[in-house]
């Protein structure tokens, strides 16, 4: 306005700033600084005039503030700073600017009303196209962009709508390398891991203060937490949205004012002119039915709606959904929760009168495989009940178990302080156990973990006769829904720490097998059945070997699985679920996985994200200092133990009685020199026994990235097995454990390399080979030399044995051990069976992997057949080979046995061709089939790649040839 003059401003400093801004040639940085100062200087006396000058006067048009209703470039990067007036004048400023721009704002409000109608009520291709034309004619605000992102997510690939929306999003900034619009879209898009993205953002931008004065920080934070917790946050969000457009600030303010009025303090309530208020009232009602329209993918419905709702805050239902979900997913905030926050008021409006009794009466049968809206609501309600301070001490343990069964993630919704209070106020042992179980899952405190184990053991001892299976039955009677939680929790790691109940290592495995069997029977869970079988075969082999097994490496499995569930499970499950699930072969992955991570980071398709997650999981499995391999490597091997063990006995050996005569011998000088050198080598190897995961640790012998084809192929095969198990089970409960097994398989290659390296080192410096002729001439010196080398051999062997994975995890066995076990078990059944065994091929073949017991299973069938129908003292030849084929590596097993002299070869041949259904039921550890039928069914299920059975009538021999493809199975020649 020509009549408005800078000199009319009350603040002289403000006058000066505005004069400075008149300079159209000033550089970008200086202009930004002056603008910031200008806005900060505006007080209530100057607010009207300053606003008019800056926004409406052509003298300041070069500042780009004139297009305040709709931005010309939504995600333009001219200024990252948020320019806005001081908090105390922001509402006056908003009212002024809205009044000044009311025509264009009303037009935009009506445009969004039409947009909602076209997309929510219409939604056809033609209405979508009309909606897009509308956007293009009126311009794109942040609110518009959010709505397009919501429809883009809901459209999936149906009818090409996804492509249309994607093009519009791209037009307004959604493209590779433009992080802010990408985050906005990904937050809403159901295909992206909401929590992981949020953590990445928070880490990247260090948003400890939660609210910044930069758009690139505050917008992502707002995307995750669109409802303010405090009036300060409300003002900060208002400024942020205003930095995109006046329309965005207006709609956000009105949404909070009308749909969450408790968040707007008295004195902050604004009324706008009648035209604006009327247009707003119409818009509010136009998002009704958003849930139905946006719920295309029923599997994720409440989750999807929660994410999409932030695009429809003008609608009360949508805002409530955000309020519910926001607290549910703000786990960090929830953990630190100390006092009621404003956002919970919105929750209480909906569920504030719930009581535990009411929840139990309404008892929703939970669907544990996906997000169930009622379970979701029960969870927040239950958390709210606790947070309100309602006394739960009157709720019995059995009711607490039922409440746990109709809710989920209570441990994430309550702070550890709240959970600790519940434990201490629990009315009975069972309630105490339930609360202690939740606390254990989230607490960092050793005492909490210790008390959980004490409470659990005490409960089992006093209520279920010390029997964990009886305990599970008891829990099942209370609530089936919480059984999987306990079955997963009571793995070998947890069981091994129950020192009151479990008195030996053997008992650890027997108990776990019993739990898996129980779960397999009660819940028809094939995955548990397979794991039980695997463990059982492993125990038998251990028992047969009769050796000491001292693997010192492990991970803290429950913590690892919790971490995986928090960070990556969503990406992995989406990947496994994707019909296009695939992993590239190693040839197309020419670089290490670290580089690959960087590559796939840029590639946003489902497969790449899944693979990226898997590689990150493996890396963390190796190097996480709290639960990863590195923790065990450091504490159980590298620090002291390995050096002490490698040196053990080498100093004291001279004191042995046998060598008394050598005391003072000058020949010992050579031994002393060797011992000093030996210790130096030991120091060198021990100090390099770590992962080369950091720049200052590049000398590490172990790598947490996948750098060779062998590891890659194992990862590929094992991942395909995880996907197969996931599809056959139909839920994701088994995924973390199966992924853990995958990690062990990949690591095993690395461990074998280190074992070989240690073995190779021994001849180089680990053997005492003196040059002085005294040592060969003197018998006592020779004996001493031999004794020393015997000690180093034992020491090396012991240390090498530490570098194995625990045998129960993806167990491995020498083929010769598997064969010995099968022969021993067959002899138990047929005592006269004493064949002349002829072994050929790779009897020292190591078999490992999730399905390795299948080799045992198939061999058992064949050999029991041979014992029952063949010549018990005839020749039994077993040939095993590792073959390279076009389709990959395979283990080929060929067993030939002699027929009984009395047998009719023709009849045997005929019988073999049809299979005998009636025999050998015990041979089949998996199903009720038997013998050849069993082998055939293994072939049909893809567990065997090849099966040939032949009876040679002339030579009177039966030959069975089996091929096992190496996918989940891993084999290496020698140990």
């Amino acid at each position, binding site marked *: 306005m020509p009549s408005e003059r800078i000199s009319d401003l009350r603040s002289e400093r403000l006058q000066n700033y505005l004069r400075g801004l008149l300079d159209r040639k000033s550089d970008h940085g200086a202009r930004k600084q002056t603008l910031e100062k200008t806005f900060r200087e505006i007080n209530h006396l100057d607010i009207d005039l300053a606003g008019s000058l800056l926004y409406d006067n052509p003298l300041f048009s070069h500042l780009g503030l004139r297009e305040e209703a709709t931005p010309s470039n939504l995600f333009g990067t001219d200024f990252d700073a948020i320019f806005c007036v001081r908090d105390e004048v922001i509402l006056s400023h908003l009212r002024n600017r809205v009044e000044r721009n009311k025509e264009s704002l009303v037009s935009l409000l009506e445009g969004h009303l039409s947009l909602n109608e076209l997309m929510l009520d219409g939604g056809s291709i033609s209405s979508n196209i009309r909606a897009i034309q509308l956007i293009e004619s009126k311009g794109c605000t942040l609110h518009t962009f959010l709505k397009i992102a919501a429809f883009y997510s809901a459209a999936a690939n149906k009818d090409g709508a996804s492509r249309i929306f994607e093009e519009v999003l791209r037009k307004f900034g959604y493209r590779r390398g433009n992080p802010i619009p990408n985050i906005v879209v990904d937050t809403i898009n159901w295909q992206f891991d909401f929590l992981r993205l949020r953590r990445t953002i928070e880490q990247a931008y260090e948003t400890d203060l939660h609210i910044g004065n930069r758009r690139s920080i505050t917008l992502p934070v707002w995307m995750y937490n669109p409802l303010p917790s405090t009036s300060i946050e409300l003002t900060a969000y208002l400024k942020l949205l205003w930095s995109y457009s006046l329309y965005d600030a207006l709609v956000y303010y009105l949404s909070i004012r009308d749909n969450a009025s408790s968040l707007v303090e008295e004195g902050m309530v604004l009324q706008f002119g009648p035209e604006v208020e009327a247009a707003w009232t119409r818009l509010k009602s136009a998002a009704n039915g958003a849930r139905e329209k946006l719920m295309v993918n029923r599997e994720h419905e409440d989750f999807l709606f929660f994410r999409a709702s932030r695009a429809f805050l003008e609608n009360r239902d949508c805002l409530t959904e955000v309020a519910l979900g926001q607290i549910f997913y703000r786990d960090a905030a929830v953990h630190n929760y100390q006092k009621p926050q404003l956002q919970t008021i919105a929750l209480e409006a909906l569920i504030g009168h719930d009581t535990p009794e009411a929840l139990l009466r309404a008892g929703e049968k939970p669907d544990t495989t996906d997000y169930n809206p009622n379970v979701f609501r029960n969870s927040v309600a239950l958390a709210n009940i606790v947070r309100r301070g309602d006394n739960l001490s009157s709720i019995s343990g059995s009711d607490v178990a039922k409440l746990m069964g109709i809710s989920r993630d209570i441990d994430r919704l309550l702070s550890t302080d709240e959970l600790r209070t519940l434990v201490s106020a629990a009315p009975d042992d069972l309630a105490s156990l339930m609360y202690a179980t939740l606390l254990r899952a989230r607490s*960092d*405190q*050793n*005492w909490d973990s*210790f008390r959980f184990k*004490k409470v659990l053991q005490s409960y089992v001892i006093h209520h279920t006769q010390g029997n964990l299976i009886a305990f599970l039955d008891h829990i099942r009677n209370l609530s089936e829904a919480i059984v999987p939680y306990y079955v997963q929790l009571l793995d*070998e*790691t947890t069981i*091994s*720490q129950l*020192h*009151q109940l*479990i*008195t*030996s*290592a*053997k008992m*650890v*495995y027997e108990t776990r097998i019993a739990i898996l069997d129980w779960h397999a029977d009660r819940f028809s869970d094939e995955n548990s059945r397979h794991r039980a079988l695997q463990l059982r075969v*492993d*125990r038998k082999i*251990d*028992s*047969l*070997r*009769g*050796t*000491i*097994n*001292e*693997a*010192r*490496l*492990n991970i803290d499995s429950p913590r690892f699985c919790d971490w995986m569930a928090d960070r990556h499970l969503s990406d992995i499950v989406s990947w496994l679920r994707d019909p296009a699930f695939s992993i590239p072969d190693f040839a197309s992955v020419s670089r290490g996985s670290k580089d690959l991570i960087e590559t796939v980071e840029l590639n946003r398709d489902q497969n790449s994200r899944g693979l990226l997650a898997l590689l990150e999981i493996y890396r963390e499995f190796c190097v996480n*200092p*709290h639960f990863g391999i590195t*923790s*065990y490597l*450091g*504490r*159980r091997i590298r*620090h*002291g*133990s390995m*050096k*002490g*063990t490698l*040196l*053990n*006995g080498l100093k004291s050996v001279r004191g042995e009685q046998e060598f008394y005569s050598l005391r003072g011998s000058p020949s010992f000088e050579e031994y002393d020199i060797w011992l000093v050198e030996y210790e130096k080598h030991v120091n060198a190897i021990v100090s390099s026994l770590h992962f080369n995961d950091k720049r200052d640790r590049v000398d590490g012998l172990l790598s947490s990235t996948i750098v060779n084809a062998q590891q890659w192929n194992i990862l590929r095969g094992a991942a395909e097995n995880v996907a197969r198990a996931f599809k056959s089970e139909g839920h994701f409960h088994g995924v973390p454990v199966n992924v853990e097994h995958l990690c062990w398989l990949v690591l095993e290659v690395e461990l074998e390399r280190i074992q070989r390296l240690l073995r190779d080192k021994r001849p180089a410096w680990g053997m005492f080979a003196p040059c002085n002729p005294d040592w060969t001439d003197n018998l006592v010196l020779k004996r001493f030399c031999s004794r020393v080398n015997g000690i180093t051999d034992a020491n090396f062997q012991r240390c090498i044995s530490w570098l194995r994975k*625990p*045998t*129960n995890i993806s167990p491995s066995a020498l083929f010769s051990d598997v064969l010995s076990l099968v022969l021993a078990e067959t002899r138990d059944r047929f005592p006269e069976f004493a064949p002349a065994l002829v072994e050929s091929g790779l009897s020292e073949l190591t078999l490992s992997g999730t399905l390795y017991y299948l080799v045992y299973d198939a061999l058992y069938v064949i050999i029991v057949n041979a014992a029952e129908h063949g010549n018990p003292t005839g020749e039994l030849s077993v040939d095993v080979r590792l073959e390279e084929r076009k389709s990959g590596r395979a283990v080929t097993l060929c067993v030939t046995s002699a027929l009984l002299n009395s047998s009719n070869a023709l009849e045997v041949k005929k019988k073999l061709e049809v299979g005998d259904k009636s025999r050998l039921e015990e041979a089949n550890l998996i199903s009720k089939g038997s013998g050849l039928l069993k082998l055939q069914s293994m072939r049909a299920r893809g567990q065997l790649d090849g099966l040939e059975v032949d009876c040679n009538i002339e030579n009177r021999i039966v030959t069975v040839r089996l091929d096992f493809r190496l996918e989940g199975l891993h084999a290496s020649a020698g140990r």
Partner: protein
Amino acid sequence: MRVLVVEDDDFKFEDIADLLQTLPLAVEATRASSVQAGYEAIQRAGYDYIILDMALPSHNLVAGTGNPYPEPVGGLEVLLELADQRRPEKVIVLTQYPSIEFNREYIPLERFPSVAAQHGIGSVRACILFGLDGDWKELILREMANYEDTSH
């Protein structure tokens, strides 16, 4: 003096046993080689001192029965059990790692007794780094020099 040594490494136990023999008092030493054995030992009897390793296997090694679980801070279970039972035993932690993971933080050995005491574990008299140089022996002897035989 009754001493429980919770230690799985043979070479380390032998060194400790040799050291205990040098004490002027008669020492009745008991060895536990795992967390489970340590737990049972403290249920069974009382001790004047417990020399406690931190990284331990869950159970004793027995041929043919599968591997026990390695526990990087398994010794903490023994400490917590002692604290839970309000036991009077004095504990000397003797470990080969320069820190102890407690409440998911790595506590340097010299700070561990006070941190443990703040969390209700008051029994830790010293926390000593074991090394092949033998400096730890002096520290243990110094600690045990304060022992007063109260059994009579």
